[in-house]
């Protein structure tokens, strides 16, 4: 017999029948993605591990409630996003208040039609744009985003999920996803501009 890789739905059916091997396989299939999402949301290994375990324990607990007609990965991302947001709310916050965040985002809009010219750092050398220190700045900047913007940015731009999937996973409309994504990107752009050029916008 041909050795084919079981689909998610096949594994889920086996898990419901009590197969520990199927569960092991499903966890192995998605653990890296969940860990990456959790790490990006929380910014450290310990919290990311808690979120990872909470996510899969919740999956085990509620697998019977999963409707097979929807995509397992979207459902999993929803569980993972909720676990990450719950963890984040227990932590002391690095994130900006929404007011500070929006002020910073819209300072760019004001700067575009001011007299002073903005600096374009986008064609800088790759070793400068993506060296170790720059990565550190990028990682820190994500943790400053208010959580509702952070989760959208991480799912859409870092994990590469389509906007429609992000909307489903977070119970948001697609325009809401796009608007939050835009603001998150603008904030991060400001942080990188400041780092690369010393300019504030």
């Amino acid at each position, binding site marked *: 017999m041909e050795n084919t890789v079981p689909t998610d739905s096949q594994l889920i059916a086996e898990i419901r029948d009590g197969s520990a091997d199927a569960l*092991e396989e499903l*966890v192995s299939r998605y*653990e890296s993605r969940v860990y990456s999402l959790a790490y990006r949301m929380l910014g450290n*290994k310990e919290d990311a591990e808690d979120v990872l*375990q909470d996510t*899969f324990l919740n999956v085990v607990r509620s697998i019977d409630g999963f409707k097979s007609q929807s995509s397992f990965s979207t459902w999993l991302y929803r569980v993972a996003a909720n676990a990450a947001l719950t963890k984040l709310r227990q932590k002391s916050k690095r994130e900006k208040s929404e007011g500070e965040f929006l002020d910073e985002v819209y300072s760019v809009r004001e700067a*575009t039609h001011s007299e002073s010219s903005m600096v374009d750092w986008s064609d800088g050398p790759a070793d400068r744009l993506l060296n170790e220190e720059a*990565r550190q700045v990028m990682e820190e900047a994500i943790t400053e985003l208010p959580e509702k913007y952070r989760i959208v940015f991480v799912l859409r731009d*870092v994990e590469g999920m389509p906007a429609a999937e992000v909307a489903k996973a977070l119970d948001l409309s697609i325009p809401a996803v796009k608007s939050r994504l835009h603001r998150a990107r603008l904030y991060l*752009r400001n942080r990188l501009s400041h780092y690369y050029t010393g300019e504030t916008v």
Partner: protein
Amino acid sequence: MDCREIFEGLSEYIDEELADKTCREIESHLKDCDNCRVVVNTLRKTVTLYREVPAPEIPGDVRTRLHAVIRLRGETG
């Protein structure tokens, strides 16, 4: 369209999700506005840079503990 009017649509512009007409309006503004061009270039670069950062890999010990926790749960639950 002026700087303020195109501002909200710049991510969708970068993602190529706008209708042709809006796209052309933005492009005609960008031709004459250095600052908005800088915002578009650096915004696009920001997105690219974040996509280029390698995903944090799951450490071996974290993975081992995850599987132990799940196995235990599978047996008792």
